[in-house]
């Protein structure tokens, strides 16, 4: 059951081979056994989970179930959930109990899914290693000396360690895909606007996008079917007809045009990662895909542009954390301004403070044109590169991350080195394109390598089709970390 696909879990539930209560207890037991080692969850509440499971069992008994009814799912602690502590990995929200449900939580509740708890993450989703959490670093299930990637590292580790069949994540610069790659699981960042941001604590609003994390492309499709959809409460939510993201999974890849950008295979790419990605491209060619060189000439500027845009938006979004209405408030202060300054100095960790300072500076008088406006122009060039590329190919494929998982602490003292982890993932966020990472082998130290697939706007079904066909021929996605057996 721990390794079963969502489809298999769903049919086991329908056939009464297992109840949602039993299934939920199984995963809660797994969490209890492994969380001390991995720190993937910030909050677990067995009573709440089991109550949801009982309701789901009632629905199943009445034959009123949907594909995810009764299936346990872990949620990144960035999604506000009613009556659940919602911390966003920060001290400043350490006492925050969600007064309402995020749209994504609503959708899973409506589908009858069971929440397994809230997963650990980089504070306010700012990071690529899940080390900046106030609640301590998450450990990589493949090697507990290593990071799981970030910021959705708790969700990635939970799925990798089979503490949850599936999880939610959010991706602003790679925060679903990079931890998926480093932890050996699958993750999809949908087209910007497909999944509502309502109740998803904002980091950089023009880039933030929620998405699913799971063991296979097929599971991602089932999860996206639940998560995607118009929500009037998000001003950038897209009004489109509902789609079945699993509809094209079984299409053959014959004639598929795979664009391979030279820029993502150059200096900085570790040889072990490059080798695994090359092997995956060869496998796709065997399945009938054609390899086409494409150019993303401005790709190299995505990290610089991102570090002007994302912190600028963050500095504005995070101004709401002031100790006045909710969250942490400093103990001693002289006056209102001092209350703000102390609350924010004590409540935010070093990386969040750093990004707020960057953002405040790039938006300040006299620097706006040189940094923020310049970055928005480069953002246009990066998006144009993809427009050109997609005239010649159906999907752009390369590595998700330049290296396999690195050791805990290896990059914490050098923010720029940490930022460069997202060099291949950031361009899709800037352009707003859908992109996924799926396991494609192992590199140094037996650590997982991720394959990055970027599609044109709203081509999630195509990306999942390519990923699923690849996964029918390979078993990298089915491997699980050794040494975690209960």
């Amino acid at each position, binding site marked *: 059951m721990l390794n079963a696909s969502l489809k298999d879990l769903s049919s086991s539930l329908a056939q009464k081979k297992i109840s949602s209560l039993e299934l939920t207890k199984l995963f809660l037991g797994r969490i209890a056994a492994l969380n001390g080692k991995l720190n993937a969850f910030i909050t677990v509440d067995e009573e709440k989970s089991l109550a949801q499971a009982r309701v789901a069992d009632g629905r199943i008994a009445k034959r009123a179930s949907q594909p995810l009814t009764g299936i346990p799912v872990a949620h990144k602690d960035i999604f506000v959930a009613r009556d659940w502590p919602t911390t966003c990995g920060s001290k400043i929200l350490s*006492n*925050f*109990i969600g*007064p309402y449900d995020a749209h994504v939580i609503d959708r899973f509740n409506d589908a009858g899914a069971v929440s397994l708890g809230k997963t650990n993450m980089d504070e306010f989703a700012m990071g690529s290693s899940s080390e900046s959490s106030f609640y301590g670093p998450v450990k990589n299930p493949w090697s507990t000396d290593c990071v799981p990637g970030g910021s959705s590292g708790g969700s990635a580790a939970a799925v990798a360690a089979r503490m949850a069949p599936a999880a939610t994540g959010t991706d602003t610069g790679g925060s679903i895909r990079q931890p998926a790659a480093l932890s050996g699981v699958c993750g999809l960042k949908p087209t910007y*606007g497909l999944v509502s941001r309502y109740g998803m604590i904002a980091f950089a609003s*023009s880039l933030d996008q929620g998405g699913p994390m799971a063991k296979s492309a097929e599971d991602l499709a089932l999860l996206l079917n639940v998560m995607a959809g118009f929500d*009037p409460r998000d*001003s*950038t939510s*897209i009004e489109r007809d509902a789609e079945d993201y699993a509809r094209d999974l079984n299409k053959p890849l014959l004639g598929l045009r795979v664009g391979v950008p030279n820029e993502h295979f150059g200096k900085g790419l570790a040889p072990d990662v490059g080798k695994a990605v090359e092997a995956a491209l060869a496998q796709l060619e065997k399945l009938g895909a054609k390899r086409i060189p494409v150019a993303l000439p*401005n790709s190299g*500027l995505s*990290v*610089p*542009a991102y*570090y*002007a845009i994302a912190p600028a938006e963050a*500095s504005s979004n995070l101004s709401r954390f*002031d100790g*006045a*209405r*909710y969250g942490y*408030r400093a103990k001693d202060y002289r*006056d*209102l*301004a*001092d*209350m*703000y*300054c*102390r609350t*924010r*100095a004590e409540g*935010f960790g070093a990386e969040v*403070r*750093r990004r*707020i*300072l*960057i953002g*405040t*500076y*790039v938006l*300040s008088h006299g620097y706006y044109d040189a*940094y923020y*406006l*310049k*970055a*928005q*122009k*480069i*953002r*246009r*060039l990066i*998006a144009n590169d993809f427009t050109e590329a997609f005239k010649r190919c159906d999907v752009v494929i390369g590595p998700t991350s330049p290296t396999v998982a690195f050791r805990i602490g290896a990059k914490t003292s050098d*923010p*720029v080195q940490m*930022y460069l982890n997202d060099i291949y993932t950031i361009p899709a966020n*800037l352009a*707003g394109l859908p992109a996924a990472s799926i396991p494609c082998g192992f590199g140094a130290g037996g650590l997982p390598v991720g394959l990055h697939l970027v599609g044109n*706007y709203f081509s999630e079904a195509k990306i999942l089709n390519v990923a699923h066909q690849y996964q029918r021929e390979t078993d990298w996605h089915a491997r699980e970390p050794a040494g975690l057996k209960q």
Partner: protein
Amino acid sequence: MPLTPKEVLDIAALARIGIGEAEAQAVQADLNNIFELIGQMRRVDTEGVEPMSHALDLTLRLREDKVSETDQRELFQSIAPQKEAGLYLVPKVIE
């Protein structure tokens, strides 16, 4: 143009983050490295390029002028650090 510790303190004041001289010194080096990274943008000529503020061409939706939310003051204030008689309490602003 590298930031001075004084500039770091000024930015922190704008951002309402209380940092001392010592932290300003420590943060200064990190920020300068990051601004060197961001500064790579200067390599590209962007004359005439239209800034892209958003991934999609969107216009703000209008909604009907109808009440959609109910009053949940008690619920929302139940997590406030300090409150009294339905009001949030903060230090006195006007003497």
